[in-house]
């Protein structure tokens, strides 16, 4: 008889960590190809169309980079939160509340400011709103033990309703009755790289955020505390680390970055506030706030890893639109593949904690 022996590992091996990300993508693509095949398409052909649509040309890369911006900002924030085991599922809400606050500052500021200062204030408001929303959940979690997954998730719906109320109600642009606010004045719209929709000021903020979080995690006392707390809360308590401070801080940072992504989409792409500014415009496409969860996991909860993952996932999203347009494969297929990646990643992360050995038993 062949026996399987399963033991818990004290620490996963480093190469296993890296391998999980790669293997998860492979597993998801293989499982996805079965889905594609059952729909009567050739998986190989679809995948090559998908990847060339996402990464195959200058214009493809430009589109991918545009979508990378929000995924990067949110993903790197979630990576930090997840590192501290603060399960923030509320990035969609934090993104929208950031967009609302930033738009409010853009449209209704009661005094005049020079455009650069006005834009800066919009982004500060976006960060503060996202951070504040996340901080509420962190506070309730540390003070009364309210589960953070539940509170952050449910607030997403509350914020979505608030957005609808505003754009169908008091903030609606006068005229044709579309559920939009009026457009931001031209001076407040972000510049883009020539011929693309890459609103580079937000991209630069994103890259700076990645570098800051990288330094925070690797080089600072706070980063050390976050890692100790996330890996072993009991050891953190033993070392005298204040868990309240850690949870509040990582939630403020991750919520704030989601808020920046929100106002970035408004000021850089849409130039007005409407439904779908969080990327959930088309059917079957979920908000950037949810997709960024996959980004953070695929990047192994590290800053640089999440940056690469954001670019990769953005490419799949862009390529997915192309596949739908050219080949008629429903976009739901892309969502399914992204979901499969996440399942493989989380499953892989759990399996990596165990050691499997086969032996011949009696």
């Amino acid at each position, binding site marked *: 008889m062949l026996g399987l022996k399963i033991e818990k*590992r*004290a*620490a*996963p091996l*480093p190469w296993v960590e890296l391998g999980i990300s790669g293997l998860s993508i492979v597993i998801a693509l293989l499982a996805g190809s079965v889905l594609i095949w059952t729909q009567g398409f050739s998986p190989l052909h679809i995948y090559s169309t998908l990847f060339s649509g996402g990464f195959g040309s200058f214009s493809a890369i430009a589109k991918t980079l545009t979508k990378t911006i929000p995924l990067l900002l949110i993903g790197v924030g979630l990576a930090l939160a997840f590192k501290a085991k603060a399960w923030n599922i509320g990035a969609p809400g934090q993104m929208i509340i950031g967009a609302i606050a930033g738009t409010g500052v853009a449209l209704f500021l009661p005094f005049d400011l020079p455009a650069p200062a006005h834009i800066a204030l919009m982004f500060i408001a976006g960060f503060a709103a996202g951070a504040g929303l996340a901080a509420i959940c962190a506070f309730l979690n540390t003070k009364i033990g309210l589960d953070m997954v539940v509170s952050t998730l449910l607030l997403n719906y509350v914020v979505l309703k608030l957005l609808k109320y505003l754009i169908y109600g008091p903030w609606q642009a006068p005229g044709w009755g579309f559920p939009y606010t009026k457009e931001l004045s031209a001076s407040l719209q972000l510049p883009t790289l020539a011929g693309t929709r890459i609103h580079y000021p937000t991209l630069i903020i994103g890259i700076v955020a990645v570098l800051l979080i990288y330094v925070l995690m690797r*080089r*600072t*006392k*706070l*980063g*050390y*505390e976050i*890692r*100790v707390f996330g*890996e*072993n809360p*009991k*050891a953190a*308590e*033993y*070392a*005298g*680390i*204040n868990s309240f401070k850690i949870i509040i801080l990582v939630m403020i940072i991750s919520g704030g970055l989601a808020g920046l992504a929100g106002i970035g989409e408004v000021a850089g792409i849409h130039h007005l506030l409407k439904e779908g500014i969080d990327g959930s415009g088309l059917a079957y496409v979920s908000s950037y706030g949810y997709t960024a969860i996959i980004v953070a996991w695929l990047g192994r909860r590290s800053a640089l890893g999440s940056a690469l993952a954001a670019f990769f996932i953005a490419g799949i999203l862009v390529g997915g639109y192309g596949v739908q347009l050219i080949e008629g494969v429903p976009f739901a297929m892309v969502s399914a593949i992204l979901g499969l990646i996440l399942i493989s990643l989380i499953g892989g992360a759990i399996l990596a904690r165990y050691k499997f050995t086969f032996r011949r038993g009696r």
Partner: protein
Amino acid sequence: MRKPRMEETVVEMKGILKRFPGVLANDHIDFDVKAGEIHALLGENGAGKTTLMNILYGLYKQDEGEICIRGKKVTIKSPKDAIDLGIGMVHQLFKQVPRHTVAANIALASSPDFFFPGSKAKEKILRISEEFGLKVDPDAEVWQLSAAERQKVELLKVLCRGAEILILDEPTSTLTPQGKKGLFSQLKEMKKKGYAIIFITHKLDEVLEISDRCTVLRKGKKVKTTPTSKATKRFLARWMVGREVLFKVKKKTVKKGKIVLEVKKLRVLGDRGETAVKKVSFSIREGEILGIAGIGGSGQGELIEALTGLRKIEEGRLILSGKDMTKASPREFVDAGVAYVPEKRVEVGLVPTMSVKENLILKDYRVPPFSKRVFLNLSAINRSAKEKISRYNVITPSPDTPAGILSGGNIQRLILARETSGEPKLLIVAYPTYGLDVGSVESVRELLLKQRERKSAILLISEDLDEIMTMSDRIAVMYEGKIMGIVNAGEVTREEIGLMMTGTPWREIPNARA
């Protein structure tokens, strides 16, 4: 199943041997139980009692030896086999579903049917509880019950499955004195009806009160089986703790300095809200080792957590070098120079997934040279890690290796390197050599003595009496949260410590030089 006659030997275990990595848990143990008998199994933690019973209950398989049940040789592969043979085990921690009723909990354990047996199960429960005087309301939900009632449920569970051989693992540990009295009368009732009862304990009073025979185990070996009528407390204590020749350590005389830690009438709660530490007072001076002896779970764990800020102090005062620290946080204890080597090294004392060098700064990452303002000083961390690894002889592939993959002895040296290199004022060490190999045991003990010579005050908690007796300057013995006595290490015998560990206060021990 045939009803056994009274006095018939129903369980016979012969030459049982069980090895775990690094330990011989059971070394050729012979053990038997008769119908209509309560047989106490006595020994310190780690003596092999639970291992032996887990073998009988099919949780472990013995490496050598055989088991006969009612005269027939059997192989018990799993608890299911044991249950089919009429063996039932009542665990120390109850395995019940708190939100379900008593009847549902019992039926869950005993019904072979797929569908849930409603009224039939209730009838059976009522009948059996009537028979043994185990009165519990079958419709009550388990979370509403007291510990004594939950224990009754556990007994009913076993009886409803038709067990005639009962194993009770430290059944009184969660009970009040009244609950204990009730349990004992129920056990006597069962005994009269021909049940065979194995009673695992380390409380001498209970052995003398309830058992017909008792078997004493020590360090995996059987010391003696005797009719309880022929045993005295003093003999039992001696058998339990032994009289071995103590190993020698080179312990220099160190002149004691000022008082470092003083605790006054400390009261601390345990995890279940019970009072775990009762009016405990003691003090430790510079250059002194105070050993705390006691059976595991006597309140030592809660006491040291209170002394490091990890557990709230309900009453009493804690004074460290003249400063009141009764309400201080863990960080304030760290800053005040209290180092702590916890019992759960990997779960509490280590971040297994982080590197050796990162684990070495767990307590002092906030201070120079390891950090400046917000930033860590990576080169200082690297340098200090290399130095500590070689000075404390931590064997690791590199300072960047995840600490969790090191061996037990190296993990303990890593923790000691971290805790003692800062020259602590007070060093609290819990079970410092538990589970380590011989070489590591020696190196750890030498390290502790070096700290003593450096004039650190040391609080040593250990279940190993040899360790307590050779390392300590003074010894405090805890039993059920209270201190039974504090004595100079040179003026006490193992037997006297054994008596205190099992509930006799120092002043009540005859010939005590109190």
